[in-house]
């Protein structure tokens, strides 16, 4: 809601109508002879060769999958192989005009695109650059294999390298492009501009937009092509990605060289089926996919349907669309019509389509048609083209032989090095900035009104006179988060922050108050209400080399970005074989007072997912230190905050929150109060519930409780907790999350295993009820109260003399609640 753009009722209420322009469909109609001015003979032949290489590569995979044999070479590949036989012209045409700086993203069916873009890159690279790429990739391990006995040019070596790296990846070999950890559906090779393919349908729909954002914000050369299938048009993240990419603000509010559309081309590889569902005619309603562009923005996304069975038609379209993107008039939507002759996967019986249909498309096969055209136009002789096929088969045979040889191409050795994959889950680096450069800011930091305001605040909850400081005059938790973020914006030129209400409003919880004054739109902006795209674009932004800080407002909205948080953000570092980093921090706020869909602590959901770091600070000191650590690291961090305590002052760290920079290491819990008789381990704002319970234990029952604030969920160092339990023998755990399946249960189980011999009672978990969160007036019956802790201690750990319980913490009640699932 920028104040400078007024919405005039007189204007928007005026009657009018929307008119649409034309969307071209299959308009390309040139023959080879007509195109001979634009292509050399070599170009035509190379287009043919590239299609043949892709076709033969997949024919080989198909034979291996269905017959375990290719020209007598036997192998069993148990993993997936989603083939795109029939779609070669679309892949080669797409890649033909793309430069090395242009990135492509793909789907589960992207072998052809990887090879096409790789072949295009090899053609463009000079020999030295190509050799350097091959030599530097994983210390040249893949190069060594193909170099052995190679006679011929560097480019020919490059092709062998491409085929071998891709196949080794598909067959899970250590020499694969991603050490075999990505596999068929995720293979990629960034030095050739091939970015992750994605096994989740439409997964690239928002990630690729983040890559385009990276290019725009960091003024990088090149465009981004998002290759996804026609059926992904039914996926929310694709729509969210399109919404994000077409935001008005790129043209209205972004200034100077940042002004203009995102350089992204949504290329729908429209093979007309989503697995077995016929998109046009059965599962979608667009008739012609390109129609979608008309509804998105006034430019109709420059949408067009092109004939993906004609490589020249695809090349022509990409040349024109690339120009639009370079002129900052994007984004663009292309509906590249093609057909998959092979099944969805080798187990596909094609029961959803007729034999006649497949045969008709086989007759129209792009490779055969193009071959006839080349011969007819006398660009090449049949013998010449036959020899290309023969050479290709020989190359693929050699590649297959090398790839399946255990000695040449071993799998990762998890017997010898059992922790190899562990070592790839996180990059664990410490980086002030992701790239050198000047940080673009609007005013010096000390002139910022928020910074000035914070300077007047008391950084401890009691003043020098020992008296409690009023809320408004004390340094609050939200100030701690702000200071860390502000500091990073002046350190890392690549840092961007976005989400809903981030600009102008200052964030729904006033954490970002003051940021708008400091930063231009290209570093801080409001996103559409698209949590999927908010996180998904951050994934793309991070994997390209930038640092992103995004916010999804409420924890309850995690479901809206489930795939991005669970499947994308945590996985790409390890799935890339540690080629890419993921410096992305996602701020997630746990609500209160707002009922069932705005008050849930879902930290356990992300705590469960391998590849995420999860923190939940509860004090201003920890909030600032953990945000600093999160923004200094190179790993994805889910940063939980609690709306209950945004205004809390620092009550534990003597001397208050330091003004300078410091980090709290992620994964280290902290003793907030020492004690001998019982340990209380809290996550999030229940730290203060624990403090109240501990006060009562001391005053009424003469027991001293040791309070440990978990601060992080994952990673988590149990040593401190175990030491405490060795001392006290008793532990109670508490958080605001619903008890069943909460992260406390994970912790309680681990503590039981690690400290069994020292336990004088079972670890007891006190979380919220397994209900909907009721209205604020009833919250005390839902969220853990100090009394609940005392009752649980009394009933399950150590009877408290004279204690009268107010809640039912008996084992029988526990059985009853579980029995009824409440």
């Amino acid at each position, binding site marked *: 809601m920028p104040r400078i753009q007024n919405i005039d009722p007189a204007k928007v209420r005026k009657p009018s109508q929307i008119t649409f322009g034309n969307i071209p469909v299959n308009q390309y109609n040139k023959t080879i002879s007509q195109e001979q001015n634009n292509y050399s003979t070599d170009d035509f032949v190379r287009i043919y060769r590239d299609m043949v290489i892709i076709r033969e590569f997949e024919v080989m995979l198909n034979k291996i999958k269905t017959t375990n044999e290719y020209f007598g070479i036997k192998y069993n590949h148990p993993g997936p192989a989603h083939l795109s036989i029939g779609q070669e012209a679309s892949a080669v045409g797409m890649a033909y005009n793309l430069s090395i700086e242009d990135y492509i993203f793909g789907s589960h069916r992207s072998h052809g695109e990887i090879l096409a873009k790789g072949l295009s890159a090899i053609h463009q690279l000079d020999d030295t650059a190509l050799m350097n790429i091959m030599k530097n990739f994983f210390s040249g391990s893949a190069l060594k294999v193909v170099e052995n006995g190679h006679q011929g040019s560097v480019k020919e070596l490059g092709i062998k390298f491409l085929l071998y790296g891709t196949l080794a990846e598909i067959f899970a070999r250590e020499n694969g492009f991603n050490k075999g950890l990505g596999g068929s559906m995720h293979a990629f090779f960034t030095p050739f501009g091939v970015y992750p393919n994605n096994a989740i349908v439409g997964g690239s729909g928002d990630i690729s937009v983040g890559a385009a954002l990276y290019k725009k914000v960091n003024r990088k050369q090149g465009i981004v092509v998002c290759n996804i299938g026609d059926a992904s048009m039914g996926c929310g993240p694709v729509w969210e990605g399109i919404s994000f990419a077409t935001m008005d603000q790129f043209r209205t509010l972004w200034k100077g060289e940042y002004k203009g559309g995102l350089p992204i081309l949504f290329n729908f590889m429209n093979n007309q089926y989503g697995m077995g569902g016929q998109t046009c005619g059965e599962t979608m309603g667009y008739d012609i996919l390109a129609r979608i562009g008309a509804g998105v923005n006034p430019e109709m996304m420059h949408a067009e349907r092109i004939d993906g069975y004609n490589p020249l038609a695809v090349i022509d379209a990409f040349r024109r669309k690339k120009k639009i993107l370079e002129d900052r008039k994007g984004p663009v939507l292309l509906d590249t019509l093609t057909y998959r002759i092979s099944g969805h996967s080798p187990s596909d019986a094609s029961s959803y389509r007729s034999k006649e249909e497949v045969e008709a498309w086989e007759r129209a096969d792009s490779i055969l048609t193009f071959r006839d055209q080349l011969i007819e136009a006398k660009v090449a002789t049949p013998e010449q083209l036959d020899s290309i096929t023969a050479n290709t088969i020989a190359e693929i045979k050699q590649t297959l032989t090398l790839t399946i040889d255990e000695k040449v191409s071993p799998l990762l050795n998890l017997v010898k090095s059992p922790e190899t994959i562990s070592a790839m889950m996180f990059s664990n680096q410490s980086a002030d900035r992701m790239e050198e450069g000047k940080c673009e800011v609007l005013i010096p930091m000390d002139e910022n009104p928020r910074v000035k305001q914070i300077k007047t605040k008391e950084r401890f909850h009691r003043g020098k006179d020992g008296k409690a400081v009023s809320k408004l005059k004390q340094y609050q938790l939200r100030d701690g988060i702000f200071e860390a973020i502000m500091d990073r914006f002046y350190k890392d030129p690549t840092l961007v922050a976005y989400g809903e209400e981030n600009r102008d409003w200052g964030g729904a919880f006033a954490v970002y108050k003051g940021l708008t004054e400091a930063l231009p739109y290209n570093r801080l902006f409001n996103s559409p209400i698209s949590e999927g795209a908010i996180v998904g674009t951050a994934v793309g932004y991070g994997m390209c080399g930038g640092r992103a800080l995004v916010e999804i407002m409420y924890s309850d909205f995690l479901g809206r970005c489930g795939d991005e948080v669970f499947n994308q953000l945590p996985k790409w570092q390890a799935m890339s074989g540690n080629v890419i980093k993921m410096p992305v921090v996602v701020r997630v706020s746990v609500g209160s007072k707002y009922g069932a869909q705005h008050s849930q602590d879902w930290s356990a959901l992300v705590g469960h997912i391998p590849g995420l770091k999860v923190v939940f600070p509860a004090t201003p000191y920890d909030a600032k230190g953990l945000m600093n650590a999160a923004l200094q690291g190179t790993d994805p961090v889910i940063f939980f905050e609690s709306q209950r305590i945004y205004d809390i002052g620092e009550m534990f760290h003597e001397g208050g929150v330091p003004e300078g920079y410091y980090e709290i290491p992620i994964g280290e819990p902290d003793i907030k109060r020492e004690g001998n008789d019982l340990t209380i381990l809290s996550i999030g704002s229940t730290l203060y519930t624990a403090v109240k319970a501990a006060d009562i234990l001391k005053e009424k029952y003469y027991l001293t409780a040791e309070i440990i604030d978990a601060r992080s969920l994952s990673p988590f160092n149990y040593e401190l907790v175990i030491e405490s339990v060795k001392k006290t023998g008793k532990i109670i755990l508490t958080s605001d999350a619903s008890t069943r399946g909460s992260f406390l249960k994970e912790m309680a189980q681990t503590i039981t295993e690690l400290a069994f011999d020292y336990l004088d009672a079972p670890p007891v978990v006190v979380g919220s009820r397994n209900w909907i969160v009721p209205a604020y007036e009833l919250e005390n019956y839902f969220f853990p109260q100090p009394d609940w802790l005392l009752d649980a201690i*009394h009933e399950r750990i150590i009877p408290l003399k004279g204690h009268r319980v107010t809640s*039912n913490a008996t084992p029988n009640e526990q059985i009853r609640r579980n029995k009824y699932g409440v």
Partner: protein
Amino acid sequence: MANPVIMPRQGQSVESCIISSWFKNEGDEIQKGDILFSHETDKAAFECESEFAGILLKRLYQEGDEVPVLKIVAIIGTPGESIDQFSDESVDSTHEGIVSVESKEVEDFTAITGLTVARLEGEKIRITPRARNRAKELGISFEGIQGSGPEGRIIEQDIILAGKSDSFATPPASSVGEEFEIRKLSNMRKIIAAKMKESLQNSAQLTHHTSADARRLLELRKKAKESFEKGASENITINDMVCFAVIRALKKHPMVNCHLLGDTISIFHKVHLGLAVDTDRGLMVPTVKNADDLSIQRLAAQLKAVADNCKKGNINPELLASEAATFSVSNLGSYGVELFTPVINLPQVAILGVNTIINRPTDLGNGVFGFVPFIGLSLTYDHRAIDGAPASAFLREIRLEIENLDFTI
């Protein structure tokens, strides 16, 4: 009539605001809609417009002051008008307080406590791992203890309490009139009983007593202790030294290092030394094999290891067989025993009892008498295998070894 300007409430959770700046001074003429002052919460900044026209008669707060919401901030009226009625008034009466949930009466549940839950006979004993470990450490049997934890579970504090009261072994008499408790013998007790009886019934045991000047022993012990405190690996005890002396004596008197088996006698080339150890479960005599190969340090280490293993219950049973040792030592010195007759572990032919150290008057030479510490030694031997004279010679050998003991610490 004068009108009060109140601090607006900016949202449900806001309790007060700070006045950032005043835009009007006292005495200024105010129009409706004029901005009077700006104020901020911890989340946002706002501007307060006047709802009244008139003269700003009074500003009740200054810039930077924190003002509770709904309090009067300023008064607008006509010049000269009295403002006394607003002097110390708030409009709190209109305050819509949030219903305090904390103060609500909460239904009482009946406390279900573990304090009075008694364990029924035959019921499984519920004890926490920590309490079990503590009981073992203190050598306390927890079977009779009434737990104070939830549902009668025995927790650590119960064990500690039992250890202090010394009443743990004898639970309170459950039925009136019983003067004793009947317990079945443990297997261990049965085995000890049978062995002891067999030994005394089937051999010809008698005991010779002597004592050795212990000054050398005590001096060495002092050095060993100092050295251990400085970091030496072994804390060599008096018992270790006596055993060391015994081993050396045995090497000179191989006829004592024997097993008597019916009509044959096995004379051992090596010394396998048995050591009587008192444990929770009863007497055990573990063996240190090839003890004559060991330095005093290694002997000390091994004696300590086998004794500890017996106490922990994880000793190799083969080392407990009386056939495993060729000679045994039983030391009751620490209990202050001055003289006793140890019982031989058949088929061994002798055992040395080690007694406490007593200061005895001794001729120090030249008619001077003084008190010298002596350690008592009691050798029981099987007269079927050894006669009195060689047994006495062996005992003297031990004494001489003790008095002339020397080793490097």
